[in-house]
Every structure is written in structure tokens, then in C-alpha cells.
């Protein structure tokens, strides 16, 4: 079984015309995958997160399955800088704006970039940030990814509209892979959206995102997970942020029955500034686990994290966040906050903050709150004529608002707000 999977990976790589180095990396990653044990309850990171449902032995390259549903795009094509859509393993670039073209921005499938931008991709794909050795899931993705998205923003290019990546899936396991790299002094917003219809039987998704934020550049990366209700989903999203660069990531978790996000930002140069934002709205039996890492490896850098979960039904969330300050990383400024709002008695939220501070001249703080809706808030809103449902939905909106506020691009913000409201008002719920 496993040897045939290895052959299958090599055959597919050859039939896609992938360069030799990539075929070798896939083979090496598959070897790491096979020799890495699956996560178990005894690993600290997986103690609250059940992965026993994952068919580790059945992992294989995506087969051709049903055609993904034709879902509406999250925004008008013309309000994007570029729009790349992956359906199953097939990638199309639907639009590139004149502005993006003039600025020399590259938005293509990762498979194509392995050829056309071979040096950059070989240098950065699964090397420093998310190598196969990071874990079994990362190794699985490195061996099996198909299609993928490659975004390169050249030095000094400043985009005023977002680059949009849409991943549509139907019934076959999917392994999205994204590589973003911003040149010195550039500025861009990227929105990646994972989707399948509620009726889709997609069972497994395992994606990997690597963000290289170049010196003095600004990147905002927003990720929306909106799979249908059958999907178990993994996301690895690692970033490195250079001197004087700014990164804002926002992870929006709406869909699936299971979601595990491993989100990390490594601050590598002085003046780096990172905001890690997250919001999840979970209902029914949904489960979402976010592990975050703010890794300060330089002096004089700042990171600020805000993760908000709203839980209904008997949903469960885990938030575990680490601030790590390396011994030489003096004058680090790091903040971490997790807020959980329960809409009724059924849900449960675990919040596990961790500080690992090895330098002595730092400012690091964290906070965590878990609350239910305050009856006084409902009374106050009621006294202004808002019924119970309206008041609750306003309070939920308000709970997410500080996160939405941190999405710099108005088009992206509005697309995310629309998706959250749609779920809140039941139009997308299972």
C-alpha cells in the first residue's frame, strides 16, 4: 500500500511535468510522513484534540472526484488585484488587474511557479518555515499538495486591492498549499478562502501556508475556512517577518466539523510588527483548535494577538497560544488575548496561554476571558426595542467587531463580515 502510494506520488509529479527537485522533495516528504508517528493524546499539543478519526494509512494524492459546487465568489472580480481559483486540483487565474500587472505582481498556481519561478519556490517551499520535519501533517501536505497558489509581490509594489485565492472542494481529500512572498517596501492584502457546499461530502482537508514578509513590507493575510459540515480540516500557517515589516493575519473559522489551525509568526528583524487575529463562530457539534506561536527571535519587535471564539450549541474550542522570546530578543513587546463567548450552557472553551520568556528586558502580557451573554446587556438592548434574537446577534457581531476592525482592507473586511453574518443568521448553518 505505502510503496504504491510513493509510486503514485512520483508518477503524478512526472505527469504534471514537475521539476526533478520537486519530485525528490515529495518523495522525501512522504518518507518523513511514513516514519513520523501520528499525533496522540499524550502529545501536549494534541491533548484536547481528537485525531483518531484521521485515516493516516489511507493518505494518497487527490483523485478526480465530483465537480465542486459553483459557489459565488466572495467579492466582485474587479475589486480584486488578482483572483486565483482552485477547484479540486485544477487552478485557474480568473483575473489580474492592470495595477497588479504593471506592478509586476505574480499570482499563479504553485505548480506553475515551480517551473517559472523555480529558484524562489525551491528556496522557500517547505524549507525554513514549514518543512516536512515540522510534523506528520506538514509532511503529508508536502508530499501530496496539488495546484496551490504562489504570490510574489516585487520590491516597492503597493497594491490597493486584495489578491484573492479561492479553494473549492467537493468530495475528494484536498491539500491546499500557498506560498506568499513580499519584496522590500511592498504592500499587499491576500485573502484565502476554503469552501465547499453544505451538501459536499468532503471529509479531509490539510493545507499549508507559508508567508515570507520582506524587509519594510506590509502584508495582510486573511484566511477563511468555510468547508461544509462534514469536513475535518487542518491548517498550518507559518510566517517569517523581516526587519521593519508588518504582518497582520486573520483566521476566520466558520465551517467543518473539526478544524485544527497551527498559526505561527517568527519575528526575525528589529522593527518587525505582527498582529495575529482570529475569530471562530462554532455551533452544533463543531470543534476548533487553534495553536498560535509568537516567536520573537530579534530585538525591538512587537506582536499582538487577539483570538475570539463565539460558541453555540455544544461546540468546543481550544485556544493555546505561546509567546516565545529568545534569549537575545531584548525589548520585545508581545501581547496575547483570547476571548470566548458562550451563547448557551452547552459549549466548552479551553484557553491555554503560555509565556516562554528567555530575555529580561521585555514586555509580555496575556489575558483570557470566557463569558456568557450578560442578561443586563439583553435588557438594555431590549429597552431600546430589540428582540432577543436581534439583541443576541448584535452582541455576537460586537464580539467579533474588534477582530474585523483589524482587517486593514475594507473589501476583505466586508466579505468576511458577510460570511459571518450569513452563518449567524442560519443561511449557511448545517
Amino acid at each position, binding site marked *: 500500500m505505502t510503496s504504491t502510494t510513493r509510486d503514485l506520488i512520483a508518477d503524478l509529479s512526472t505527469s504534471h511535468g514537475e521539476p526533478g527537485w520537486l519530485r525528490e522533495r515529495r518523495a522525501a516528504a512522504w518518507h518523513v510522513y511514513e516514519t513520523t508517528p501520528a499525533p496522540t493524546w499524550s502529545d501536549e499539543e494534541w491533548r484536547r484534540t481528537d485525531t483518531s478519526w484521521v485515516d493516516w494509512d489511507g493518505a494518497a494524492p487527490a483523485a478526480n472526484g465530483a465537480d465542486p459546487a459553483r459557489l459565488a465568489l466572495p467579492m466582485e472580480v474587479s475589486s480584486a488585484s488578482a483572483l486565483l481559483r482552485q477547484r479540486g486540483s485544477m487552478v485557474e487565474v480568473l483575473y489580474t488587474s492592470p495595477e497588479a500587472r504593471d506592478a509586476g505582481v505574480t499570482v499563479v498556481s504553485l505548480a506553475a511557479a515551480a517551473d517559472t519561478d523555480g529558484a524562489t519556490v525551491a528556496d522557500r517551499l517547505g524549507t525554513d518555515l514549514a518543512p516536512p520535519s515540522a510534523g506528520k501533517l506538514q509532511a503529508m501536505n508536502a508530499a501530496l499538495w496539488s495546484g496551490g497558489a504562489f504570490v510574489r509581490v516585487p520590491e516597492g509594489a503597493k497594491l490597493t486591492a486584495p489578491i484573492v485565492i479561492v479553494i473549492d472542494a467537493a468530495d475528494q481529500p484536498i491539500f491546499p498549499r500557498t506560498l506568499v512572498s513580499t519584496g522590500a517596501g511592498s504592500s499587499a492584502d491576500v485573502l484565502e478562502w476554503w469552501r465547499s457546499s453544505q451538501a459536499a461530502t468532503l471529509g479531509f482537508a490539510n493545507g499549508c501556508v507559508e508567508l515570507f514578509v520582506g524587509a519594510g513590507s506590509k502584508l495582510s493575510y486573511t484566511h477563511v475556512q468555510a468547508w461544509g459540515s462534514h469536513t475535518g480540516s487542518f491548517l498550518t500557517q507559518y510566517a517569517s517577518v523581516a526587519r521593519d515589516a508588518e504582518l497582520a493575519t486573520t483566521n476566520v473559522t466558520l465551517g467543518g466539523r473539526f478544524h485544527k489551525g497551527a498559526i505561527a509568526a517568527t519575528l526575525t528583524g528589529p522593527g518587525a510588527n505582527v498582529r495575529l487575529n482570529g475569530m471562530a463562530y462554532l455551533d452544533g457539534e463543531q470543534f476548533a483548535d487553534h495553536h498560535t506561536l509568537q516567536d520573537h527571535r530579534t530585538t525591538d519587535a512587537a506582536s499582538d494577538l487577539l483570538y475570539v471564539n463565539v460558541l453555540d450549541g455544544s461546540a468546543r474550542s481550544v485556544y493555546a497560544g505561546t509567546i516565545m522570546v529568545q534569549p537575545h530578543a531584548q525589548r520585545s513587546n508581545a501581547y496575547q488575548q483570547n476571548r470566548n463567548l458562550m451563547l448557551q450552557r452547552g459549549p466548552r472553551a479551553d484557553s491555554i496561554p503560555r509565556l516562554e520568556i528567555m530575555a529580561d528586558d521585555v514586555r509580555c502580557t496575556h489575558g483570557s476571558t470566557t463569558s456568557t451573554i*450578560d*442578561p*443586563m*446587556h439583553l*435588557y*438594555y*438592548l*431590549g*429597552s*431600546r*426595542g*430589540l*428582540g*432577543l434574537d*436581534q*439583541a443576541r446577534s*448584535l*452582541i455576537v*457581531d*460586537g*464580539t*467579533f*467587531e*474588534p477582530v474585523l476592525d483589524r482587517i486593514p482592507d475594507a473589501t476583505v473586511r466586508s466579505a468576511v463580515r458577510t460570511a459571518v453574518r450569513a452563518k449567524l443568521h442560519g443561511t449557511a448553518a448545517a
Partner: protein
Amino acid sequence: MTATNGQTTLSIRDLHVSVEDAEILRGVTLDVPAGEVHALMGPNGSGKSTLANALMGHPAYDVTAGQVHFKGRDVLDLETDERARLGMFLAFQYPAEIPGVRVASFLRLALNARRESEISVMAFRRLLLEKMQMLRMDPKFASRYLNEGFSGGEKKRNEILQLAVLEPELAILDETDSGLDIDALRIVADGVNRLRGSDLGVLVITHYQRLLNYIEPDRVHVLIDGRVVESGGKELAERLEAEGYERYGAATTSEDA
């Protein structure tokens, strides 16, 4: 929105209210006709805020006997939001802070809940700016989160802004003067005075006579130990200011000034 033609807006008959099985109101009877401003005065613990919250339908306040009619309708079986949509309004002594909810978006939702057809975004903006100007509020106020980080004076002004935008037929002002400096008090009172008219009935609940120097009441009622013990004209408020509540034999000690 029907005109009330001077008829009684609010009619309270023999109202008994308990909180956690302790009877606080022990038979309150009071009428507020349309267009009139009535003051309800009393020492701490006399039941003033209990009356305000019982009128608005706070779930923790248990009406054990009596009746409340608003515009001729029995409202005791209505939820708080239903009373509000009928035209009742309570300006809170301690308004709730609701993070993430902007003043403007909240008020537009609240106004639409009162209306049969939605107000357009532009028309609402104009209305809001006009009312904010009246209350001498910075337009930036509209995009702040509802009461979060507001000073005491800002919270009270925000309550009166809501009153001005929602245009109810009954406004209950619960200790609106507490925590206000004299300038803020004047602005708030000025706002209320501009809203006085043929339709709006106002029940001003206050410990002190100070507010009544600025909002002149048509009638003054004295609440002691959960009962209205005396009613009169505005001179009654002045007498209370001079003499205190002791003549009613009430336990009037713990003032919160």
C-alpha cells in the same frame, strides 16, 4: 404613533413589586399624562429605580399586584422590547457597556425596530448628526462602541441622544443627574426640554432637586418606602430640598452624594 390628545400616557395602579422575595414597591399609584413632566423624588432605598425597572419589564423585578397601562394598554404581560416598541423608554442610571457595537449602528437598528419601514442610511445619518449637534456631541461619538470607555457624563448624554432619536411617548429618566457636572447637567436638561411637547410624557426620577431647576416639572411625587406619600406642584421639590425627607419619617440616612 397615535396622538394621545392629552389623555393619560402612563397609568400605574396599586403596583406591588418584589425583588428576590423582598417587597420594594408596596402599592404605587401614579399617572403621567401626555405632554407633562412628572418628577418622582425620594430617599435612597425608597424604590425609585425599582419602579423604573418594573415599568420597563426587567425580568428580576416581580410584579405581584397592581396594574400598569401605557396608552391605554396593559403592558405587564409584555416583554421589555415590546414595551419599547410601543413607545416606552428608560434612560438608565447605569447604562450597559456593549463592546464592539457602535453607537450609530445600534441606534439605527433600534430606530428601525420602532418604525414600520426602514429609515435609509443617509436619512438616519442626517437625523443622528442633527440630534448630536443638539446635545453638543462630537460626531466621532457615533462610531464609538456603545458606552464602552465613556465617562459618566458621556453615558448620560448618550442616553438622552437615544431618547432624542427614538422619540418615544414616555421617557423615564432614572437618576440622569447623578454623576453629571453642572455643564453636562445643563446640556442634558436642555435636550430633555427641547423634546418636551404635546405627546411626550416624562417621569424624572431623582434624589435631589438640582435637576428640577433645569427641567421644570408639572407635578412632583414623593416616594417613601415603596408608596407615593405626597404629590404636588414644583414647589414641593423646593420644600424637599430645604427640609429633606425626614418629615415623612423615612429612614433617609445613607445619601450617596
